[in-house]
């Protein structure tokens, strides 16, 4: 049951578009004991299901606009092909370390952006008062 609840909560975050921050991958490698690339495969299935449900809800809410969407997807597919090819040549332990570094960068960047937005908001509110 705790596994079900854990997956459900991570899926809620994924459904809101922010992803699960690598927690599911950690759960699979550290708790379940799956090898790195196999855990990445299971993580993909999890993402597929959670983002499928979320995309259907967003589609109904009419959140998709813009003629750029199709070429954006095509460029992304090209990138996916390149990235997947790399998994055949890079040892899993390096992939794990590189992913950790990417997450740290992403986390620091997100916190920095948040702080900057808050500071801008505060500065704007002071301007209005004056």
């Amino acid at each position: 049951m705790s596994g079900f609840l854990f997956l459900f909560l991570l899926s809620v975050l994924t459904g809101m578009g922010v992803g699960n921050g690598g927690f599911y991958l950690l759960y699979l490698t550290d708790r379940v004991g799956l090898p790195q690339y196999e855990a990445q495969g299971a993580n993909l299935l999890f993402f597929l299901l959670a983002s499928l449900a979320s995309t259907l809800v967003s589609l109904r809410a009419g959140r998709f606009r813009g003629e750029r969407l199709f070429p954006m997807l095509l460029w992304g597919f090209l990138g996916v092909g390149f990235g997947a090819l790399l998994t055949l040549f890079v040892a899993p332990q390096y992939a794990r370390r590189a992913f950790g570094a990417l997450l740290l960068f992403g986390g620091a960047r997100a916190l920095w952006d948040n702080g900057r937005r808050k500071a801008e908001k505060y500065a704007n509110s002071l301007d209005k008062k004056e």
Partner: protein
Amino acid sequence: MKTSGEKAEKRRSLSLYFLCLLAGAVNGFFGMGAGMILILGLQRIHRGGREEIMAISTLCVLSFSLLTTILYFVAGHVKPETALPLLIPSLLGGAVGALLLGRISPTLLQTVFAILLLISGTRLLLL
């Protein structure tokens, strides 16, 4: 002769395509991570509101993950039997998350996300 507005639009399009290329490559290599790259990038490049950015990010993650899953399956990284226990909680949680979109403070959401990233990143790097 192109106006400066047209040039800026072209630059914006090119930036969006490069962002997607990068997000796709990250997703293909790590099996995830496209959402993080897209959200951080789209907030700077795309003109839409936060809800639209989150929705576009989810659609791209879905499409990239679908292709990555196929390629991982071919490479032998995906075991179909692992999908079954994921089915119900993932579908339920994904739908609930999309319904909650717009009702939770974006700042709070981004802070939670940043903390998750920092914890996971540190753990992956050190252990």
